[in-house]
């Protein structure tokens, strides 16, 4: 067997192990999968008070947060969302597979960080957005969905994923 083949026998495992070492060493948060930007889907839904929500209400820079009164983890992220809304981030709630009575009661009880909440009891808009459960959050800039996280919003996720995109958008305007 010639020399190059013998060399390969040792080289290939080295390459494989180096590759895996690389994958292991990348920090979980630094690993931001490429997100394919898409248009925010159209919808015909009302807010929690029964008033129709117009597509233009989502113009500009909006954080769309999927929540529900039955969702326990939503309580965990709630204080952070309140902090964001206090810092003038516009948060639009997407109330997912809930009853609007229970939803309104939940907001009354825990506080309302949303400028308004879209009432989506059947999850139609959520489905078009690719929602897999609650809580989830989307960053929508100029009616384009530019980021998506599953699970609760934490300050770390905010700072590494969402905030840089917001800053980039603000600098461009």
């Amino acid at each position, binding site marked *: *067997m010639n020399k190059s*083949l013998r060399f390969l026998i040792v080289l290939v495992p080295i390459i494989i192990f180096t590759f895996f070492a690389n994958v292991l060493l990348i920090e979980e948060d630094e690993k931001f999968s490429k997100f*394919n930007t*898409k248009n925010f889907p159209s919808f015909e839904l009302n807010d929690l008070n029964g008033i129709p929500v117009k597509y233009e209400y989502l113009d500009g820079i909006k954080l769309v947060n999927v929540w529900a009164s039955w969702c326990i983890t939503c309580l965990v992220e709630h204080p952070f969302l309140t902090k964001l809304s206090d810092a003038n981030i516009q948060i639009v709630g997407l109330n997912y*597979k809930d009853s609007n009575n229970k939803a309104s009661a939940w907001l009354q009880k825990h506080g309302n960080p949303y400028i308004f909440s879209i009432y989506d009891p059947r*999850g139609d808009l959520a*489905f*078009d*957005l*690719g*929602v*897999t*459960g609650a809580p989830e959050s989307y960053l929508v800039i100029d009616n384009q969905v530019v980021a998506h996280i599953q699970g609760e919003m934490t300050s770390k996720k905010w700072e590494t994923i969402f905030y840089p995109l917001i800053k980039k958008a603000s600098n461009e305007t």
Partner: protein
Amino acid sequence: MIKSNFFLVSSFLIFSMYSFGEIVYQFEDIAQEKRFYSLISEIRCPKCTSGSIASSDAPVSRDLKNKVYDLIIDGSSDDEIKKYVSDRFGNFSDYRPALEGANYILWFGPFIFLSLILIIFFFKRRAE
């Protein structure tokens, strides 16, 4: 006892618009039915660590199954249905990677590998 039974049983309750005693996914013919079950086994459950929507009971999997059903009844093709799902849940949701770009290496890799080995061995024997 009654109370705990109630909570136990009600934990399985879901909203639905079904009526009594029926087959859930009804199709015009066997071919459509096979397409449905085949498709749902190739669409990944967006919420699970791994597995298709066929094998998952998660709410979003249920929604996806119902949607695939609706689309088949409406006459969409398999490709259209897969695109519908990937538009919403990403390419990640298709267990059959499209034949494009780098995926050529994926689909043809094994046979290129086999051919290479056969060629090497063939040449080795020629050399002797």
